[in-house]
C-alpha cells in the first residue's frame, strides 16, 4: 500500500515536473535600442510556438552593463539570457561565465555568419554569444545641406576636411550645426569615437609594455581637434549627447555631419522617426595621418550565463532571435530596411541592397574593420574602439569623463589627458600589467 501510494505520488510529481520543464519562464536582459524593442514585440511568436514565457528586463546601455556584470561576476543567477557586446564576450567566455553556443543544431546556419562577427564573439575558437546585430562606423551627412553649401563629400574623408565642411555648414541661428559627435562620457559612448580619432592620428591606448599612452602627441592632437571642432560647430550641451541623442538631432535635420554607427542608417530610413529619409549620404570613417582604425567593430549579441538553470529553453530563444528566419520576419513585419544588420550574409539580399542604399557601405565597413590590427603601430591588445581587457571599462569610462570635462570647458585638454593617464597607470598597476 505504502509503495503504491508513493509511486502514485512520484508519478504525479513526474508529470507535474515534466510539465513545468516544458513551460519555463526565462528572464532576459536587453538594451533599449530600437532593434531590441522590435525583438521584444516579435518574441510573442516564439512564446506561442515554444510554450515558454519571457520576462523582459529592458535597460539603458550603462545600466544594463551594471546589472549584468554584477549578476554574472557574483554568480547571482538572475538572468537566463543576457545581451552583451563584443568587449565582454571574449573576456567572460574565457572566464567560464558563459555557456558555449556552438551546438545550436544543424538548422542554425553558422556558415552564414560573417567570419569577423563570429571571431569577435569567440574565445579560444569557441563561440560564446550569438550576434543579434553588428555594426561598424562611418560618416553620415545631410545631402541637402551639402548641396546648398556647394560641398562634395569624398568617399574617404579626413578629419581636417570634415572640420572644413562643418564650418561651412554651421548656422547656429537656424539651429543648424556642422557636426554632431558623441560627448556623453562612457567607454561605449564618447570613448568609442575618440579612440577612433586617436587611432587615425597614429595613437594607441598602450605601448607594447602596457604603458598607457594618453599624454602622447597623437592623443593630444586628436582630443584638441575634437574639443575645438565640437565647440565651434557642434550642438550645445554636447556632453549629454550619446548615440540616441545624436540620432534624434540628425534625424530632425539639425546636423550636417555625423560620424557614428552603421546601424544608425537603417533608423534614419524609418519615415516615422526621421525627416531626412532621402537626404542621407554615406562615406567611410574619416582618416587623418593614417586610415588604420578609422571604423569600429561592435556587435550586440545574446549569451547564456553559466548560472542559468534553463539552458535548453534559453538556447531555443537565442537560436530563434538570431536566425535567418528572424531577420526575414522583421523584414516582413517592419519593412526590409529595418532588418537587424551586419551579422548574416543572407541578410544582404538584392531586395535589401536596393531598399537600403547604405547596406553596401555597412557591409564593407564591417568586413574591413579588423579588431586584431586596430592601430598603425603594433599594440599588445585587440579591439578597435576599445581594448579587450577586463580593466578597460573602468579606464575607458574615467578617460571619457575627463574628456567630457574638457569639452565642457571645466579643464584644459592637457589636464584632462594627464588625469586620465594617471588613472590608467593606477588601474594597470593594480591589475598587475605594469610591474
Amino acid at each position, binding site marked *: 500500500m505504502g509503495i503504491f501510494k508513493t509511486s502514485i505520488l512520484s508519478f504525479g510529481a513526474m508529470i507535474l515536473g515534466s510539465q513545468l520543464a516544458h513551460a519555463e519562464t526565462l528572464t532576459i536582459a536587453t538594451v533599449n535600442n530600437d532593434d531590441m524593442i522590435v525583438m521584444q514585440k516579435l518574441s510573442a511568436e516564439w512564446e506561442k510556438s515554444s510554450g515558454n514565457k519571457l520576462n523582459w528586463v529592458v535597460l539603458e546601455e550603462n545600466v544594463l552593463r551594471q546589472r549584468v*556584470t554584477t549578476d554574472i561576476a557574483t554568480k547571482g543567477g538572475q538572468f537566463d539570457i543576457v545581451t552583451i557586446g563584443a568587449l565582454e564576450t571574449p573576456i567572460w567566455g574565457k572566464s567560464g561565465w558563459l555557456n558555449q553556443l556552438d551546438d545550436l543544431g544543424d538548422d542554425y546556419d553558422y556558415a552564414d555568419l560573417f567570419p569577423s562577427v563570429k571571431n569577435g564573439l569567440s574565445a579560444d575558437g569557441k563561440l560564446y554569444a550569438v550576434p543579434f546585430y553588428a555594426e561598424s562606423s562611418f560618416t553620415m551627412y545631410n545631402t541637402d545641406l551639402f548641396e546648398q553649401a556647394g560641398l562634395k563629400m569624398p568617399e574617404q574623408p579626413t578629419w581636417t576636411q570634415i572640420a572644413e565642411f562643418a564650418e561651412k555648414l554651421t548656422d547656429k541661428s537656424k539651429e543648424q550645426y556642422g557636426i554632431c559627435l558623441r560627448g556623453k562620457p562612457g567607454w561605449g559612448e564618447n570613448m568609442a569615437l575618440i579612440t577612433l580619432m586617436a587611432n587615425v592620428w597614429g595613437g594607441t591606448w598602450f605601448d607594447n609594455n602596457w604603458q598607457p599612452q594618453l599624454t602622447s602627441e597623437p592623443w593630444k592632437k586628436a582630443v584638441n581637434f575634437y574639443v575645438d571642432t565640437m565647440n565651434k560647430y557642434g550642438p550645445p*550641451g554636447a556632453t549629454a549627447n550619446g548615440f540616441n541623442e545624436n540620432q534624434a538631432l540628425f534625424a530632425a535635420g539639425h546636423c550636417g555631419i555625423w560620424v557614428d554607427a552603421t546601424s544608425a542608417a537603417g533608423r534614419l530610413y524609418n519615415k516615422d522617426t526621421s525627416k531626412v529619409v532621402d537626404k542621407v549620404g554615406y562615406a567611410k570613417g574619416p582618416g587623418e595621418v593614417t586610415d588604420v582604425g578609422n571604423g569600429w567593430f561592435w556587435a550586440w549579441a545574446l549569451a547564456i550565463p553559466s548560472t542559468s538553470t534553463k539552458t535548453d529553453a534559453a538556447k531555443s530563444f537565442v537560436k530563434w532571435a538570431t536566425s535567418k528566419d528572424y531577420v526575414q520576419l522583421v523584414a516582413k513585419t517592419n519593412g526590409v530596411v529595418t532588418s537587424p544588420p551586419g551579422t548574416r550574409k543572407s541578410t544582404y539580399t538584392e531586395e535589401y541592397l536596393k531598399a537600403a542604399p547604405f547596406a553596401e557601405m555597412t557591409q564593407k565597413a564591417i568586413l574591413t574593420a579588423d579588431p586584431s590590427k586596430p592601430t598603425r603601430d603594433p599594440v599588445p591588445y585587440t579591439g578597435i574602439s576599445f581594448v579587450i581587457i577586463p580593466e578597460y571599462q573602468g579606464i575607458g569610462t574615467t578617460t571619457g569623463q575627463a574628456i567630457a570635462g574638457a569639452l565642457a570647458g571645466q579643464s584644459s585638454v592637457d589636464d584632462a589627458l594627464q588625469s586620465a593617464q594617471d588613472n590608467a597607470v593606477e588601474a594597470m598597476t593594480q591589475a598587475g600589467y605594469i610591474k
Partner: protein
Amino acid sequence: MAARSRDVRTGPLLAPAVGVLLFWMIVPLALTLWFSFQRYNLQNPLITGFAGITNYRLLLSNARLWISIFNTLVLVSSVLGITVVAGIIFAVVFDQDFPGRNIARLLVTAPFFIMPTVSALIWKNLLMHPVNGFFSYVSRWLGLPVVDWFVQAPMFSVIMIVAWQWIPFATLILVTAMQSLDREQLEAARMDGAKGFSMFWNITLPHLLRPISVVVMIECIFLLSVFAEILVTTSGGPGLATTNLSYFIYMRALLQWDVGGASAGGVIAIVLANIVAAFLIRTFAKNLERD
C-alpha cells in the same frame, strides 16, 4: 527591600535588541574593511588575494579622491548655509499671521516630500534644460543668453537642487521652534523700544540657536551622502566638477568594478564622516551648554 526588588537587571533583556543592532552595523563594516584589503575586481576573476595597503595607497595618491572630498565639503557647506538662512527667514515670515498662512506653510514644506530622483528630474528637464526648460524660456523672454546649467555651472546647479529639497526641513524645524518663543518677552522688548532687526538679532536668533544646531547636524548626515541628484543630473561631471565622495565610490564599484578600491573609498568616507561629526558635536555641545 521592596524597592530593591524592582531593580531588575535589564541588561539581558536589552541584549537581543542591542545584539541585532550591533550585528546590523558590524557585519557590513567588517566586510567593507575586509574587501578594502583585497585585490578584487568583478571583471577580472583571475586576480585575487590579499592586497595589503595597495588599495589605500593608490587611492590616497589619486587626485580624483581629493577633488571629490573637496566637492563633498563644498556641497555640504553651501547647502547647509543656504538652508539655514532660508529656513530662518521662512520661520520668521511664517510666524506672522497672514491670510492663507496654512496653505503657504504647506507649500513651503512640500519639496521635502518629493523623492530625490524625481526632484532631480524635474529640475533637469522642466526647469534647467537649455532648450525646453523654464529658466531658458524666461531668459529668452528677457533677451538674455540661455544658460546650459549643468555644463556651465554644474556644482551650483546641484547645490540649488539639493538646497531646494532641504530648505523645507530647516523651515519645518525652525517654525516649530518659533512657536515656543516667549511672547511676553517680545512684548517687553517692544515696550523697551526694540524693533525689527534688533528684536530678531537679540531675541529670535538666540532662541533659534539650539534648533539650528539640530538642523545642521541632521542635514550633515544626509548631505554627506547625496547621490541620486548627481547621478540623475550630471553623472558627476562634466569632468569631476560634481563628483562627491559617494559618487566617486559608486564609480569605483560599478563603473570600474573595483570592489577593493571602492571599499577602501568607503572606509575613507567613514573616517571623513566621523571627523565631521566629532567636529560638529564638539562645537554644538559647547553651544548648548552655554544656555
